[in-house]
């Protein structure tokens, strides 16, 4: 979590409202996988997924790390990852990264931006380990006699982070272990204290620890034995409050206790660091304000854009780009702070009598008396956008849930969760509001200015109740902030009249629709990975590993399941088509024009499809005029560009693909 308020920064970019995604790109994410290497983690057993192969917890952990790396490198090419093992006797050699860290810990990969060789190294290690089961044990000999104090592990993490992570990055440690009580016995208390102290050090360095505890039936993981007293809630209000006699301390939010097989799934949950888009006050009424944070739970994931590189002979280096603003006539670059804002001066008029004056008035300049102000400063411009409002949400009132129409949408929603850190009492107030709105089936209308350089928008606030399923909190409690369109965003319907279906046809349609309906279904985002993005990334990855990309192996999961559809409803669809062909209204010849038709369309009766088919059968399509061909193609939503030959070809293609019914 960002330890300070993102919205408090003034962005440099006054010109365009920032896209949400760029907020994420701006910050690097650093993950250090910190994996237990004790004998139990190295215990080989049958792999449930593949026959005749053996695996162990360490191997699965490394594999999960590798998968996360592969995913991260595509989402955030600047993100960095490292791998550290503990409870191993292997030491880093002096001079190497990690040489000076605590005994019992070993840096396998120091923190660095993910790159292809690094991923390959891990892939090879895993391949070898699968071949020879003892390989991991030999490479990373476990400590058999004792365990490293967890405090030492955290200290080593701190040092590794310090050496490799950039200052501004989000820094996280994915801490994987299967031992719920590493320090039983008399020294336990002391070691708890030291673990805690070192963890606080980590937190103060801006590092969060996200534990993944592995639990098995034989060896269930009980966090209260050791870790409950070590780990801190991520949203601690005051470090000193975290004492045992504090007001009912609450467990940290992000503990995952998981079975080994679900480790990757759990990690993917945490793959992107949870960062708030904004943290602002929410004014419910004058003098009644709580704190909230906004999260982008839905953000369009786009393909990475290409970058420019310089070929320096021996290697290829990325270049950085910089935008400068220049007075072209003078070829002088202008400092950002001196830039003023105003209206495009436009080209001088072409009228003859003005020519002289136009010359006098140099193109692209405006001359005024000394001391006059005719342009705005960046602050002025921002004020025009915000109308002097401060960032925050302001409640305007409540409406029935049914008032929020399907078409009241322009962009993705933002999730709102209370922020106890900025206003104490936010959580109880927020929860009370949430419960009440769910009970009364209400939405709220709010005025929102989410960042200082954004502009105010109206939003509907849709409550979401907390829903639990086996794997944890599936649907978090909170509000979805749905931006409403302004009058300026609403387009009028261009078509106002049309022929309508008879009841008979409607019922025929209802039959197959019913067959194709998923009773308790909804739109399932998880079932639809973005095929274009995956296709692109697969090629990128293949290219990075110098492998061949096989387009045949690629599966597009978004394609409709045709076989099932036809099996279920094919016959009914066919019946509907027959009713349609018989339908009286459908066979009206002259279409009532919807007002906006060009002359060419109406001037002459178009040659109908039957006639065209007849000509096609005789191979006489060339007898048609270009207009007729175009008209036909247009009615089939086909492109109408190109020469006559191309048009004929296109008509033929279409007719071949659509045989007479």
């Amino acid at each position, binding site marked *: 979590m960002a330890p300070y308020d993102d919205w408090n920064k003034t962005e440099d970019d006054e010109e365009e409202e920032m896209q949400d995604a760029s907020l994420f790109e701006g910050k690097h994410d650093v993950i250090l996988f910190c994996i237990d290497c004790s004998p139990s983690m190295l215990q080989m057993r049958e792999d449930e997924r593949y026959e005749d192969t053996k695996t162990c917890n360490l191997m699965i952990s490394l594999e999960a790390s590798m998968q996360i790396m592969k995913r991260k490198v595509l989402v955030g090419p600047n993100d960095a990852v490292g791998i550290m093992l503990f409870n191993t006797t292997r030491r880093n050699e002096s001079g190497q990264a990690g040489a000076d860290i605590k005994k019992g810990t070993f840096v396998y990969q120091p923190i660095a931006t993910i790159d292809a060789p690094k991923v390959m190294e891990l892939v090879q290690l895993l391949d070898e380990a699968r071949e020879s089961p003892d390989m991991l044990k030999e490479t990373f000999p476990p400590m058999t006699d004792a365990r490293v104090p967890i405090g030492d592990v955290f200290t080593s993490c701190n040092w590794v982070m310090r050496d490799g992570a950039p200052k501004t990055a989000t820094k996280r440690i994915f801490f994987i272990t299967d031992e719920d009580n590493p320090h039983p016995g008399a020294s336990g208390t002391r070691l708890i204290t030291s673990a805690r102290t070192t963890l606080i050090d980590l937190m103060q360095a801006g590092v969060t620890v996200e534990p993944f505890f592995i639990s098995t039936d034989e060896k269930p993981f009980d966090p209260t034995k050791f870790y409950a007293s070590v780990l801190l809630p991520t949203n601690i209000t005051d470090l000193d409050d975290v004492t045992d006699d504090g007001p009912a301390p609450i467990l940290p939010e992000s503990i995952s206790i998981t079975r080994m097989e679900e480790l990757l799934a759990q990690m993917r949950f945490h793959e992107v660091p949870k960062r708030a888009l904004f943290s602002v006050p929410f004014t419910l009424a004058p003098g009644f304000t709580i704190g909230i944070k906004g999260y982008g739970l839905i*953000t369009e994931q786009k393909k990475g854009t290409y970058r420019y590189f310089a070929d320096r002979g021996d290697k290829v280096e990325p270049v950085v780009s910089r935008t400068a603003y220049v007075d072209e006539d003078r070829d002088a670059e202008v400092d950002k702070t*001196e830039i003023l804002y105003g209206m495009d*001066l436009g080209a001088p008029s072409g009228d003859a009598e003005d020519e002289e004056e136009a010359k006098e008035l140099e193109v692209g300049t405006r001359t005024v008396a000394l001391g006059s102000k005719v342009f705005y400063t960046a602050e002025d411009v921002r004020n025009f956008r915000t109308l*002097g409002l401060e960032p925050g949400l302001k409640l305007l009132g409540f409406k029935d849930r049914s008032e929020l129409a399907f078409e009241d949408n322009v962009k993705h929603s933002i999730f709102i969760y209370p922020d106890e850190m900025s206003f104490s009492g936010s959580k109880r107030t927020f929860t009370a509001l949430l419960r*009440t709105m769910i009970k009364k089936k209400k939405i709220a209308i709010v005025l929102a200015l989410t960042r200082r350089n954004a502009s105010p928008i109206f939003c509907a606030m849709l409550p979401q109740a907390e829903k639990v399923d086996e794997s944890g909190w599936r649907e978090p409690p909170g509000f979805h902030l749905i931006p409403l369109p302004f009058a300026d965003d609403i387009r009028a319907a261009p078509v106002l009249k049309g022929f309508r279906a008879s009841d008979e*046809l409607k019922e025929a349609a209802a039959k197959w*629709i019913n067959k194709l309906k998923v009773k308790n279904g909804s739109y399932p985002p998880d079932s639809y990975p973005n095929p274009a993005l995956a296709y692109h990334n697969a090629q990128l990855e293949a290219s990075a590993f110098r492998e061949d990309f096989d387009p045949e192996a690629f599966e597009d999961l978004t394609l409709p399941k045709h076989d099932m559809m036809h099996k279920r409803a094919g016959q009914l669809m066919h019946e509907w088509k027959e009713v349609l062909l018989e339908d009286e209204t459908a066979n009206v010849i002259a279409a009532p024009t*919807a007002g906006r038709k060009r002359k060419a369309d109406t001037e002459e009766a178009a040659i109908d499809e039957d006639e065209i088919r007849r000509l096609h059968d005789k191979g006489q399509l060339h007898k048609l005029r270009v207009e007729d061909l175009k008209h036909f193609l247009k009615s089939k939503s086909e492109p109408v560009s190109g020469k006559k030959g191309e048009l004929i070809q296109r008509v033929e293609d279409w007719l071949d693909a659509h045989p007479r019914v």
Partner: protein
Amino acid sequence: MPAERAGYTVTMFLVDVSPSMGKMRQVSVSGKDGTTSDTIEMTNLEWSLQYVMLKIQEMIFNGRKTDKCGVILFGSEETNNIINDENGGYEHVSEYIPIAQPNATTLAKLQALEPSTVTGDPIDALIVAIETQDRFLNKKRTWTRKIYLLTDGENPIELEDWEATAKKMNSLDIQLAVIGVDFDDDSLKEEDKSKIKRANETFYHTLVSKLDHGAVGNCDYVLQEVSRPDVREVKSTLSGTVLRIGDTDNRPKEAIEIMVKTSKCTALARPKSFKKFARRRRTAAADEEAAKDKMDVDGDEDKTTFAQLRMRSEYYLEEDKAGSVKPEGSVAGSVNGDADGADGQDKRLVKVEKEELVRGYKYGASFVPAPEDDFARLPTRKGMDICGFFPQKNFRRELAMGEVYYVWADPASPMQQVALSSIVQAMNDGEVAAIARWVKTDKGDPRMGVLWPSVFDDIDCFLWVQMPFADDVRNFPFASLEMLINKKGEVVKEHPYLPTNEQMDAMERFVDAMDLMDAGEKDEDGNRQPWFDTRLSYNPAIHRTKQALFHAAVVQDLNTHPLPPPHEELTNYFEPPRRVLKRARAAIEECKRVFNVREVPKKVARVRKDEHVRAHDEDEDMLLLDRQSNRAGPSQSQRATQSGAFTQTQKTSPTRAQKKPAVNDSDSSETEPEPDEEEEELLLNSGARKPERAAPPLPTPARSMSPDSRIDRNRAPGRIVGFTYPLRDFKKNIERGDVVTKAVEDLAFVIKEVIVRPFSPRRFDEMIECMHELRKVCLEEDEIDAWNIFVRELKHTCLETEPGNEQFWEKVRGIGRPLSFISQPEAAKAGGKSAITESEAQKFIQD
């Protein structure tokens, strides 16, 4: 009126420049902060010309060659018009700007207009305009002809033969608008106006009543109307595609294919962008040229030229100081997205030409060359495929990702219309929605979405909205708000995080009271409608930006002619309706009491003394960032005001700032940075609690430098406003209400003291902010004289005493009118009195 064809218009502006137009008037403009209002003075001519210029600016903005205008003056000293040239007569009417497409010069010419010493006849001008326009258009009958006549109606009109003129105008289909200065309209009736004006007004009304297209308007009203948000109705273009159900390639007998057209239903509109400009510095060559020009252009050195800037991209390679390029992937972040990375101290930037660059992708730190035509695209086929149906009630509204589209059946084909209609109606009856995959062009990227049936009065169609792919959804973990578990693993039932029954009751009453379903206007049957309608909610940024752009283009100086306030329609929905707030008052008070929400003072991370490894703290970066933004200007003052507004909310916990050792003590004493805002806040807190401890151990050496820093909050004896946080102290005292006069006096004292101290430039912005606040309070609390005396003294202190501070006064002068005297009109508005006239106030600050 039927829809007008854009462009193909000649507009004539007839401007009355008679001496009476030189009368001064008060015009309200928006104040410094953009929300309050101020008044300035200008002549009626200047004022009514604003309308002409805004109209012309709109034409320039649209940039149509077929949108032309001309300006004719009446009451001008000279006579210069085509009728006079040929037939004589028509005195004191002159064609000032010939008909042409307007540009910046047109505006400059209008700005130069001054009232004359003679009067002219509006009907003469009208006849000249009709003739000039007609000759220009010659045979072009299809063009729209418009005439705007601007006058104060104070001068005699020759009422002869006007019927013939009206007839002529009708025959040419001319639209006439008479814009009158202080003419009566529905909302305004001025009682004490001259007889002649009253008669003239009556005449203009008679005149337009005889016209097919004519209107009389009040100048005040039309000026407001130009800033009214207008939504240009955009009808989206229809683009053709195919709606498919089933496998049309292999099972055409069963598969369904409907020809459809899509168009946008909502489309995010953005504010117009500003262009960038910068003051042009004089070069030696330019000076020379200016010297040459001096012969014909007087006083050129008193001018400033601003040049429009263009964007230029430059590319750099990062190198170590040593000269070698950093090895790949050695340290995270070595590959940096932008050049302004703060960690570039020991790096050198080497410029490279774009032509030498190759395109590629980053796979982490690895380089992947982009193939010639980029990577292969997913082979897809244009069209919209239905993947299945699901009940509408299961639709998750919050997943909708973007703009909404209409999907229509081909408007030219009854068959397609009937087909689509049957599906829409069946889905509507069955309350189902469809999952649909849409590919806009062949090889285009597929998008997933939901098709929603929509039944209009005369047509059925679908609405489509994009839904997220698996990749687009982030499943961040959030803690439960209802289930709290303590460290022993037990569920906690009572906790400050959980609302009590009393709190729940209060919230319920609050939600009921704040209901908007009956808070709107009444309909025809007298039933109250819901309040808030998207169709009446204008994007304030778009319209305010446009207004600002236009305004800056038509005035000569924004200091003397600030932007008028935003049109009230823009901020219509900025506050809950009054009715509702009134109804909810009791519920709000109760909520405030039972929920007892308090602002938490911001924290600064503690630095541990015993820490052997001092890891870099992110908060230090924040300090850097903040300092940067302070330099950028606005945020500091804004934040200060914001936190000022919160001072009444009680702080919950004492912070640990008192215990905190100074951060980077050694550096800061050297650089004396502006204290960070958070520290300020802490400082205040500790100060309020433990005044005696406040000063010495604090991490903000900058201000404790001043001589009496050890005294409580740095107050001079007997003063209630201290030197350290004058604005905060002031606001606190004003809130108390009973010490206003004393607080005003003391803040004035502090400002005058601070600016003559050494290092005062550091506090200029803060002092200016204090002045704004002081003036505001003086105006509101009837301390107007105190303010007027203060600014006079301040000017004196700055300019005429030793050491003085001319620099500071320059700054005040730069702000201008908003910090000058409070004038009588201003005072009257706030219900007070002032002995100072508006022009005195203007003059005082400009001298």
